[in-house]
């Protein structure tokens, strides 16, 4: 589903080659992915985040919960094209079964020899509008809540509020 505005895009420039950026982004995801309740399903407990390096591979987090080892699966890899392109599904920990959004990451060599990493998170418009909302949720779930966003609503918001700031 492609609706204008149905996405969030963020970029960063890193001072390494694309192949290195791709490898570190994926293979070392647990080492750079921020820790804490706002970023991981495991919250404050020690969890390990893994991205399996192939199409169909899983992005998942393993951690020790009150009732033993738990696994939160955020999604599977849908595109694996090193060094330039990676895509995976993204499910917040409060998503209903079958609900999914999409994250796409590109690694592009720039003239300065650095790599521009661009991340696009999209697909919110395809989710059902009565998505459960959890008050006071940390940011991982906040993104889950963002899934209640409809394309039409986002368009309205962009048109209406985007002009003044």
């Amino acid at each position, binding site marked *: 589903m492609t609706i204008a505005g149905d996405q*969030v895009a*963020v*970029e*960063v*420039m*890193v*001072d*390494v080659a694309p192949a*290195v*950026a791709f490898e*570190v*982004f994926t293979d*070392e995801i647990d*080492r*750079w*992915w*921020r820790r804490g309740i*706002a*970023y991981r399903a495991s919250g404050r407990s020690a969890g390990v985040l893994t991205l399996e390096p192939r199409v169909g591979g899983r992005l998942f987090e393993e951690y020790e919960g009150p009732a033993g080892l738990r696994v939160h699966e955020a999604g599977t890899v849908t595109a694996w094209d090193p060094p330039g392109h990676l895509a995976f599904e993204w499910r917040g920990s409060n998503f209903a079964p079958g609900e999914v959004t999409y994250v796409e990451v590109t690694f592009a060599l720039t003239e300065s020899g650095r790599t521009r*990493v661009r*991340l696009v*998170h999209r697909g919110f418009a395809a989710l059902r*509008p*009565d998505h459960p*909302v959890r*008050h*006071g949720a940390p*940011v*991982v779930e*906040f*993104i889950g809540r*963002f899934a*209640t*966003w*409809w394309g*039409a*609503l*986002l368009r*309205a*918001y962009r*048109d*209406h*509020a*985007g002009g003044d*700031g």
Partner: protein
Amino acid sequence: MTGPDATIDATFRALADPTRRGVIELLRTKPRRASDLADACSCSRPAMSRHLRVLRAGGLVVTSSEEDARERIYTLRPEPFRELRDWLEHVEKFWALQLDSFKQHVERTRGRRR
């Protein structure tokens, strides 16, 4: 954080309907009377009245204080849209912080110029 969240819930509820989204689109251009909105949306006045009640409850529109309900002017209220924008910025911030953390890690461990 219950306050703003509750507002966002109400905003979503209010906008979970194509007619009400149409009303928002119409009010973006200028304030209008309920009867004008009903005509523009090709729906009955009682139906429009129900939609406007939901939009008012969600805080998306405000009305002038005419005693005659038919003469009330409906105006878009910008605050809920600002809250939605703030919410979107939270999501952007989540990924911006992640990529910043990635940049620090990759340049610390593999950077060519330090």
